[in-house]
């Protein structure tokens, strides 16, 4: 620590800090234009100049480090004069457009002109005027207003790593441009909007927000993004019941001000004219829908479901809820299914994405959830990214990976059959044949165990079954692994050594691991890697699934699964069954229910009569949609709660219109187990009702009264029944939320699991043989087809495709085919 005097006040600071940072800490304000906390200092604008005793000239405080005994004056007459002159120079090249500029009220230049009472400039404009560039989607650029602070360039380089922008030309012609002044779309821009978020003036603007309202006219509502499992915190700018802009708070986890294109520019779908606003019913799916009242619709659903229960038994019904829905909605869906319909036929769309994570991680560690927080990625020394095209699927998590590599020197091992964007950042890329994950990981385990690189103490104290594991992986020497996976043996050895050589090794994986027949085996294999190297239970380690939809973690935690109540309390565990039966005031079935694919099988066999589907569109998103659609067509009764007339809704007998995530209160749980509140920002469309209310009304009409004043009361019930949620309530969740387990009302949450002991006691090393995929290419079907996520779209596209800006950037799909495959045809 050094001590210095700023404006006569004694300030302590670390030697690595700048004068600006020291002043800020001491509550002394220094104006800045080109400084941003997340970016490297550039010293470009010289607004932050201060006088340092003994220095020959004024010093840019944002770039100058403190030193012992320094005497700084932040507001001397010399300093003020320099700042005024600076403002005059900037203003001389700036259009006087505050009256119609959308930045008014938020513009840093404007407020500095005000603070320093600079009304006009003595200098004459030098730079030639240019035409504002309105040609790009999402981002409006007016380089006349640019003050060349360079923040857009730096954030695109340093945070987004896209390098789309640079200073170009020289002298008075200097401007910010893409290469060859190409449109953003052709210059590598991914429309994250980071550049807009840091521009101090109106040179870069969020296009869909322009002319929609002044900053002081909007209410700011904080909520959670619903477009992926990162669960970014959002700030919605609301005017007259409309969301007109989305930004993010630089100080709020997990995204700290970053967003991707969907979070920032995907906010207009909710006002699409295709929103459903009236309940619709019909007797058979060959008939057209008929609009009806809520009373009639709910009465009909209640009658029909009671009838089916009575005539076909409890097992003729199943419910599918959604990983997009809130925790409260998912909780009520499973409560309804179990308590009212008397069956455990309850599942959610996580079945086809991360259910293997729940199974695999529970088998290995005892808890079906990510072990560490997303922030931990940045500090890892070695990262394994497996089966995750992170830059497309979890863009903000990918920023953390890039930062770990570029700024903190982490080594990245990418396991993926495709040359995804992250391969550019990788030390080793293991390009395996699709479906050979388990073999590859066994190969890595082989190298580690064979070369004695494992963490013997950890294995000894905290794991079980090492001997069996040794026997099994002995069958996967590098040569054989190469043969199965197609990955060169040197790379297997190299990757294994890198990962075994750190105590800060973190594994991040995605659907490329789980969406296989042996998906849970892939997950367990990854857990083996973490366990034998001791990379669990500490910061910057662990094994972390990136959840696809925003609330995959939460929908599973809430027991929207066939075999468990909240937080994985088993339905066939007598104690759990008793607890829930008593709480819900009715006997509950003990036999685990059907999984989603089994429900379709039952329906096709004619044994399943009714389904209730909430916010999920399997008729569009399942791999075999023909099968799903045929199954649905065979149902006597299908109820769907939706925003839009989706493919699934088109097969329903009753469609009930509900609210989107801007329109509701509740909580989502992101990939790092952070339970965070959504706050209703705008009213429901006239005629729609909240999902949770609809479930309560149907249950009540069926003779099981359910009523809550607010989703917060549902959370209170969840907390009473779920030890991991015992300390959670809506008040405590205000702000950045809490990371479960939260054992009591004082407990701060648990960002790192399995610190001293695993949830299941000892970590289980599962000995697993590689089994090839069931269907391999053959003469008749000679190609592999593998699907992937796209940055611009989300799931069935029912929301993302209805955003005009995003639609302009990306509205078509394509297949990439190996040129060799085409020739062969």
């Amino acid at each position, binding site marked *: 620590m050094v001590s210095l005097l700023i404006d006569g006040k004694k300030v302590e600071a670390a030697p690595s800090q700048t004068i600006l940072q020291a002043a800020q800490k001491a509550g002394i304000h220094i104006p800045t234009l080109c400084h941003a906390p997340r970016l490297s200092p550039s010293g470009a604008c010289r607004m932050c100049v201060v006088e340092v005793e003994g220095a020959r000239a004024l010093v840019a405080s944002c770039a100058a480090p403190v030193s012992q005994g320094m005497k700084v004056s932040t507001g001397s007459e010399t300093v003020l004069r320099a700042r005024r002159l600076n403002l005059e120079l900037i203003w001389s090249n700036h259009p006087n457009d505050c009256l119609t500029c959308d930045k008014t009220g938020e513009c840093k230049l404007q407020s500095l002109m005000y603070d320093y009472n600079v009304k006009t400039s003595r200098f004459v404009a030098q730079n030639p005027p240019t035409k504002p560039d309105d040609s790009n989607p999402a981002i409006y650029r007016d380089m006349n207003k640019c003050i060349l602070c360079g923040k857009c360039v730096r954030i695109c380089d340093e945070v987004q790593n896209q*390098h789309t922008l640079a*200073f*170009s030309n*020289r002298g008075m012609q200097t401007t910010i441009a893409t290469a*060859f002044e190409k449109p953003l779309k052709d210059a*590598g821009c991914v429309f994250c909007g980071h550049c807009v978020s840091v521009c101090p003036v109106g040179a870069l603007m969020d296009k869909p927000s322009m002319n929609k309202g002044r900053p002081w006219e909007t209410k700011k509502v904080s909520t959670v993004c619903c477009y992926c499992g990162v669960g970014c915190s959002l700030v919605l700018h609301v005017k007259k019941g409309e969301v007109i802009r989305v930004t993010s708070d630089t100080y709020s986890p997990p995204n700290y001000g970053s967003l991707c294109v969907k979070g920032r520019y995907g906010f207009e779908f909710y006002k699409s004219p295709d929103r459903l606003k009236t309940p619709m019913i019909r007797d058979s799916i060959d008939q057209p829908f008929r609009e009806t009242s809520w009373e009639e619709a709910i009465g009909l659903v209640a009658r029909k479901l009671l009838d089916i229960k009575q005539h076909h038994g409890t097992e003729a019904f199943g419910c599918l809820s959604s990983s997009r829905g809130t925790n409260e909605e998912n909780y009520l869906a499973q409560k309804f299914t179990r308590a009212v319909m008397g069956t455990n036929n309850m599942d959610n769309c996580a079945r086809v994405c991360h259910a293997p994570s729940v199974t695999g991680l529970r088998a290995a560690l005892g808890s079906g959830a990510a072990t560490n927080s997303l922030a931990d990625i940045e500090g890892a020394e070695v990262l394994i990214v497996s089966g995750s095209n992170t830059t497309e699927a979890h863009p903000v998590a990918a920023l953390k990976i890039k930062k770990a590599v570029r700024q903190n020197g982490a080594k990245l091992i990418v396991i993926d059959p495709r040359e995804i964007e992250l391969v550019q950042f990788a030390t080793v890329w293991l390009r395996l044949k699709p479906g050979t994950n388990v073999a590859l990981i066994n190969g890595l385990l082989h190298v580690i165990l064979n070369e004695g690189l494992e963490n013997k103490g950890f294995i000894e104290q905290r794991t079980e079954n090492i001997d069996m594991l040794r026997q099994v992986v002995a069958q996967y020497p590098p040569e054989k692994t190469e043969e199965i996976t197609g990955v060169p043996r040197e790379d297997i050895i190299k990757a294994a050594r890198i990962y075994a050589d750190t105590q800060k090794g973190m594994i991040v994986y995605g659907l490329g691991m789980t969406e296989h027949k042996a998906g849970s085996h892939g997950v367990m294999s990854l857990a083996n890697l973490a366990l034998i190297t001791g990379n669990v239970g500490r910061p910057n380690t662990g094994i972390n699934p990136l959840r696809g939809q925003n609330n995959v973690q939460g929908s599973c935690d809430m027991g929207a699964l066939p075999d468990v109540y909240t937080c994985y309390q088993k339905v066939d565990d007598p104690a759990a069954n008793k607890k829930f039966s008593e709480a819900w005031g009715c006997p509950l079935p003990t036999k685990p229910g059907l999984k989603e694919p089994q429900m379709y099988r039952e329906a096709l066999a004619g044994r399943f009569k009714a389904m209730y589907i909430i916010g999920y569109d399997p008729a569009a998103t399942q791999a075999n949609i023909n099968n799903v659609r045929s199954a649905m067509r065979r149902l006597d009764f299908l109820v769907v709660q939706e925003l839009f007339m989706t493919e699934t809704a088109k097969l329903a007998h009753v469609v009930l219109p509900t609210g989107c995530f801007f329109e509701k209160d509740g909580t989502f749980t992101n990939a790092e187990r952070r339970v965070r509140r959504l706050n209703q920002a705008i009213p429901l469309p006239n005629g729609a009702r909240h999902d949770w209310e609809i479930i309560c009304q149907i249950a009540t009409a069926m003779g099981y009264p359910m009523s809550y004043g607010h989703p917060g009361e549902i959370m209170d019930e969840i907390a009473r029944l779920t030890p991991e949620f015992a300390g959670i309530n809506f008040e405590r969740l205000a702000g950045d939320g809490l990371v479960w387990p939260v054992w009591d009302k004082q407990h701060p949450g648990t960002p790192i699991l399995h610190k001293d002991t695993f949830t299941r006691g000892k970590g289980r090393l599962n000995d697993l043989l590689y089994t090839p995929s069931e269907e391999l290419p053959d003469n008749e079907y000679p190609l592999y087809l593998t699907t992937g996520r796209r940055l611009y779209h989300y799931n069935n596209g029912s929301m993302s495709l209805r955003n005009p800006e995003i639609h302009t950037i990306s509205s078509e799909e394509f297949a990439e085919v190996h040129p060799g495959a085409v020739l062969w045809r």
Partner: protein
Amino acid sequence: MHKSVTVNKEGTSDVDLAKCRAILSKYNRSTPSDLIPILQQIQDAYGYVPQTALSEITAGTRIPLSKIYGVVTFYSQFSLVPRGKHTIKVCTGTACHIKGATDIKKKLTEALQIHEGETTKDFKFTYEPVACVGTCFLAPVMMIDNRYYGKLTADKAEATLKNY
């Protein structure tokens, strides 16, 4: 407006990248500080910096295209548009101006069918005005590449072009 950098399609479509690759191969572990020498050699080899060559540099050095573009537009020694085989510089300094540089410029514009700063369709000539070239005793003067042509008349200037 900014300096025009629209790349002439004809000029780039048949860019032979072999020269560019040969230059890049000398820098097989290149760092950003090699960028300027690389660009200079490319400018020399092609007479300008073709867009496709910049993409090669990006691929070879990992320096982002936007940054290379920034450097190329910063230094006047680099040109993004193909230049003619020969550069005609017509002096517009005071001495030459008095002695009739305007007529010469007019004539050349007609003869070459291009304006100042442009390149003929056949890429033979690039035509640019310059300030005093330091040989006022020869006014009015033009230079073609490194050769001086003095005491010109409009017709003499036109005739000189035929030598190329």
